[in-house]
C-alpha cells in the first residue's frame, strides 16, 4: 500500500477518532452542583460553637422551638446557608419554665424530664453548642474542670464540639464561649470558681488553632458577657425597696445592710427567690444579709468578675485581630439596654416578662428578642470585616 493510499484511507479514521474523543470526554454538568449560599462562598458551611445561649436555651429549658430562635439560626438564614440543628423533641429537655414563682414548666413536667432528640438526625450538625459548656468543654468532654452533661450526650453523642464541627468542614464559624467560665462563680458568689485567665487563654488558643487546622476561612468571635449586668442579679437595695413595698411575706426579712445607697452586694435571683423566698413561703424565717451572706456577690467580688471578663475579652479581641476575624463585644449592647432601663434592676414577678423583653424567665438567658439583636449585631460585625451584606430580618 503506498503512502497516498494510507493517507486517504486513514482520513475517516482520524476524524472518527477525534469525534469519539469529544464524545467520551464530555463536560461537567453545572446543574449537578449544589447552589452557592446567597451570602457568598465564605458561608458555604457555617458552624456555631458555644454554650446555652448559642444552643437556644431559654427560661431554664430548651426545645425545638427555642433552638430555632437562636441567633446562629437567624445568622445562617441571612447567610443563605443550610444550618442543621440537633433538634430536641417537644416539650423539651428540660421543658422551659412558664412560671418563675411556682417553677412550673411547659406541659407541667418536672425539671428532670427529657423528651430526647428528634429523629432522623441530620448527617451534619451546624449548631454544636451545648448548654453549660465552658471553653474547656469545646475541647474535651472528660476530665477536671469539664462540665459535660446529659445535653452533651443528647446534642452531640459522645463527641466534643470541635469533633462535631470538624465533620461539617466549616468555612465559617462563630464562637461565643466563656460565659460559663465566670457565670458559675457569679451565681455561687464564689470568685474561686472563675476559670483563671491564663487557663482561659490557653484553651481558647487551642480551640482556635484546631479550627484553623480544619481549614476555616473566616469567623466571628463574640466576647464574654458581663454577667453582673444580667437581670438575674439585683442589688441588695432593690430587695430592701421590694420589702418596703410589701413584696415579701413577713417571714422574709431583708437586712438593713442591704438598704445602703452605696455599692452593695449583688443578689442572685436563683438564691433569693429559689431558696430564701421558697423557704419563707413555707413559714421558715429567713434573712437576706447583704454583707455576711457568702452566696451574694460582694462589691469586691463583682469587681473581680468584671475585671476577669475584661481580660477575657481583651484576649478574644486580640485573637480576632490576629486571625483577621470579626469580633463582637456583647457588653456594649448589654450596657446600653441596662442604661435604657430595658433590663430591670429587680424582676417584676407579675409581668409576663419579669426580666424585661430581652431576657427569658430564668433571668440569665437572652429572650428571642435578644437573639434577634445579637444576630443583627453579629451580622454588622461580620459585614464590617468581610465586606459582606448580611441582613438579619
Amino acid at each position: 500500500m503506498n503512502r497516498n493510499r494510507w493517507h486517504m484511507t486513514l482520513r475517516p479514521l482520524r476524524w472518527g477518532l477525534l469525534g469519539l474523543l469529544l464524545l467520551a470526554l464530555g463536560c461537567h454538568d453545572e446543574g449537578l452542583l449544589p447552589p452557592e449560599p446567597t451570602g457568598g462562598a465564605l458561608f458555604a458551611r457555617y458552624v456555631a460553637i458555644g454554650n446555652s445561649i448559642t444552643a437556644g436555651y431559654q427560661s431554664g429549658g430548651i426545645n425545638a422551638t427555642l433552638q430555632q430562635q437562636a441567633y446562629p439560626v437567624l445568622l445562617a438564614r441571612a447567610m443563605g446557608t443550610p444550618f442543621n440543628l440537633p433538634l430536641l423533641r417537644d416539650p423539651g429537655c428540660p421543658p422551659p419554665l412558664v412560671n418563675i414563682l411556682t417553677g412550673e414548666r411547659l406541659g407541667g413536667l418536672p425539671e428532670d424530664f427529657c423528651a430526647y432528640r428528634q429523629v432522623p438526625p441530620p448527617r451534619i450538625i451546624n449548631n454544636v453548642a451545648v448548654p453549660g459548656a465552658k471553653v474547656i468543654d469545646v475541647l474535651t468532654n472528660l476530665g477536671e474542670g469539664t462540665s459535660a452533661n446529659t445535653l452533651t450526650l443528647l446534642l452531640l453523642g459522645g463527641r466534643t464540639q470541635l469533633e462535631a464541627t470538624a465533620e461539617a468542614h466549616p468555612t465559617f464559624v462563630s464562637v461565643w464561649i466563656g460565659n460559663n467560665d465566670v457565670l458559675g462563680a457569679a451565681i455561687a458568689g464564689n470568685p474561686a470558681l472563675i476559670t483563671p485567665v491564663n487557663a482561659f487563654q490557653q484553651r481558647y488558643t487551642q480551640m482556635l488553632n484546631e479550627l484553623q487546622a480544619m481549614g476555616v476561612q473566616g469567623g466571628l468571635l463574640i466576647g464574654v458577657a458581663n454577667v453582673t449586668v444580667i437581670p438575674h442579679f439585683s442589688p441588695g437595695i432593690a430587695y430592701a425597696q421590694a420589702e418596703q413595698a410589701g413584696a415579701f411575706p413577713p417571714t422574709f426579712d431583708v437586712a438593713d445592710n442591704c438598704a445602703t445607697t452605696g455599692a452593695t452586694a449583688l443578689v442572685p435571683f436563683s438564691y433569693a427567690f429559689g431558696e430564701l423566698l421558697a423557704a419563707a413561703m413555707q413559714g421558715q424565717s429567713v434573712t437576706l444579709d447583704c454583707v455576711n451572706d457568702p452566696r451574694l456577690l460582694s462589691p469586691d467580688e463583682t469587681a473581680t468578675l468584671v475585671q476577669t471578663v475584661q481580660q477575657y475579652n481583651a484576649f478574644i479581641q486580640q485573637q480576632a485581630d490576629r486571625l483577621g476575624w470579626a469580633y463582637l463585644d456583647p457588653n456594649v449592647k448589654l450596657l446600653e439596654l441596662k442604661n435604657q432601663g430595658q433590663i430591670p434592676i429587680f424582676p417584676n414577678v407579675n409581668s409576663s416578662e419579669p426580666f424585661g423583653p430581652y431576657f427569658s424567665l430564668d433571668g440569665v438567658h437572652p429572650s428571642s428578642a435578644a437573639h434577634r439583636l445579637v444576630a443583627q449585631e453579629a451580622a454588622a460585625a461580620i459585614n464590617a470585616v468581610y465586606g459582606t451584606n448580611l441582613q438579619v430580618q
Partner: protein
Amino acid sequence: MRIATGAVLPRLRKRFLVGLCSLLLSLPALGQGFSLNPPGTCTLGRGGTGVAQPCADGSAVALNPAGLALVNRLAVASGATLYLSRGSFTDDYTQQETRLEEHPVLVPHLFAAVQAAPGLAVGFGAYMPYGLELRWPRTFAGSFVSYRTRVQTTYLQPTLAYRFSDRVMVGAGPVLAVSTVALWQQLDLSQQEALPGVPFAALGIPAGTAFANVKMESDEAYGLGGHVGMLIQVTDQFRIGLRYLSAITLNYTGTIRFSPLSTGLIIPATVELSGQTIPAGTPLDVVLASLGLFRSQGPLADRDAETELTMPAQFAAGFSWQATPELTLLFDYQWTGWGEFERLVIEPDGSDPIVRIQDYRNTHTLRTGLLFQASSILEVRLGYTYAQGAAPSKTVTPLLPDANRNLITLGTGWRLGRGVMLDLAYQYVRQDDRRGRVVDPAPGTEPTPALNSGLYQIGAHVASVTVSVSL
C-alpha cells in the same frame, strides 16, 4: 437528669432485628453498571460490535451464535480482560470527595468452535456478561449501604450453528449461569432502636455511627437460559445479524456474618438508662457489648438468607458493511431487559419476606465499530458505545452508581503466524456524572431522589488480551 424510664436493657436486643431488616434491604441490585462488554478482545477493540460480523476467534458464541457457522475448521481463543474502575462521590454540602478504591478485576474468557460437518459448527464459550466489583473506603458515608460489592456471573454456553445457504446462518445454545454475589456494609447504630420507639439517634448517637460490620456472601447459584442468533448475508458487502439471550433467574442462598466495630464514642456524662446508671467516661462499646448482640442466639448472630435475582434478557441487532476491501463499518443496537427488575424480594431466615422496589428501566445500547485491514498481518479497530443506565434517579447508590456511559475503544489484531492471532484492546469508559445518595430510605419507605446528596463521577479503564488459533 433522667433520660429514660420503664424499659429494661434486655429489650434492646430484640430491637436490633430492625437493623437486620434494613441490612437485608441493601442486597446488591444489578444495573447497567454490572453489564460487562461483549466478551473477547477482538470484539472489545471494535467497541463491542459484531452481531452481524462476529470475530473469527469463536467469540461468536457470545456475540451471535449463528456466527459460529463462519468458522472454517477450528477456532480457539483464550484471554482475559482487566477492568479498573475509578471514581468518586462528592458530597453536596461538605464538598468532600471520597474516591473509589482502585481494585483491578480480571475477567477471563474462553471460546472454542469446530466445523463438525459442512455447514455445521459446534462450539463452547465461557464468559462473564455480568460482573465487577466496587470498593469504597469504610469511612465513606455510603458504607451503610455498601462499601464493597462483588457480582460474578459466568455463562457456560455450548452452541450449535448451521449454514442453511450462502445467505442464511442460524445458531443456538443453552446457557448455564453460575453466579455469586457478595456484599460488605456497616450498620449504623443511630438507626437501631435502643428502647421501644426510641432509636439511639434520639439519645444523641450521631448519624453514621458504625457499630457492626456485615459480610453477606452467597454460595454459587445456578440458572438455565438460552441464546439464539441469525445471520443474513444480504450482499457480498452487507450483512445483518440478530440475537436473543434469554433472562436467567438465579436463586441465591448465603450467609450473613456480623462482627462488632468500635464506635469510638464515650458517654460524656453519667446517665441513667432504663434504670441502670452508666457513669461518665464509659465507652459506648462497653454498653453495647453488655447486650450480647453478637452471641450465637443474639440478634446479630450469623444467619442464612435467600434471595432471587434475574440476569436480564438481551436482544441485539446489527449490520456490517465492507466499504472497501480494507475498511468495514459495524453498527449494533442492543436492548437489555432491566425493566423486569422492578422489585427485589428477600427472605431472611426466620422473618417475613422484604420487598424492595427498584423500578429499573430497560436500556438501549448503541455500538459502532470500524475495522481497518492495515496489512495482511495487522487489523486496526476502533469503536464507540453509548449505553443507557438502568437505575432511576432514586436508586443511584454506592452499590452501583449507575448512569449513561460513553465508551471509546482502540484495538488491534496481529497475525503472529499461520492461524495464530494476538488481539489487544483498550477501552476508556466515561460514565455521565450523576447525582445519587449514600443512605437508604427508612425501612418500609420507598427511596426518592430527595435522598440524593452528592455527585458520583465514575470511569474505568479496560484492557484486554487474547491469543487465538483459527484454522
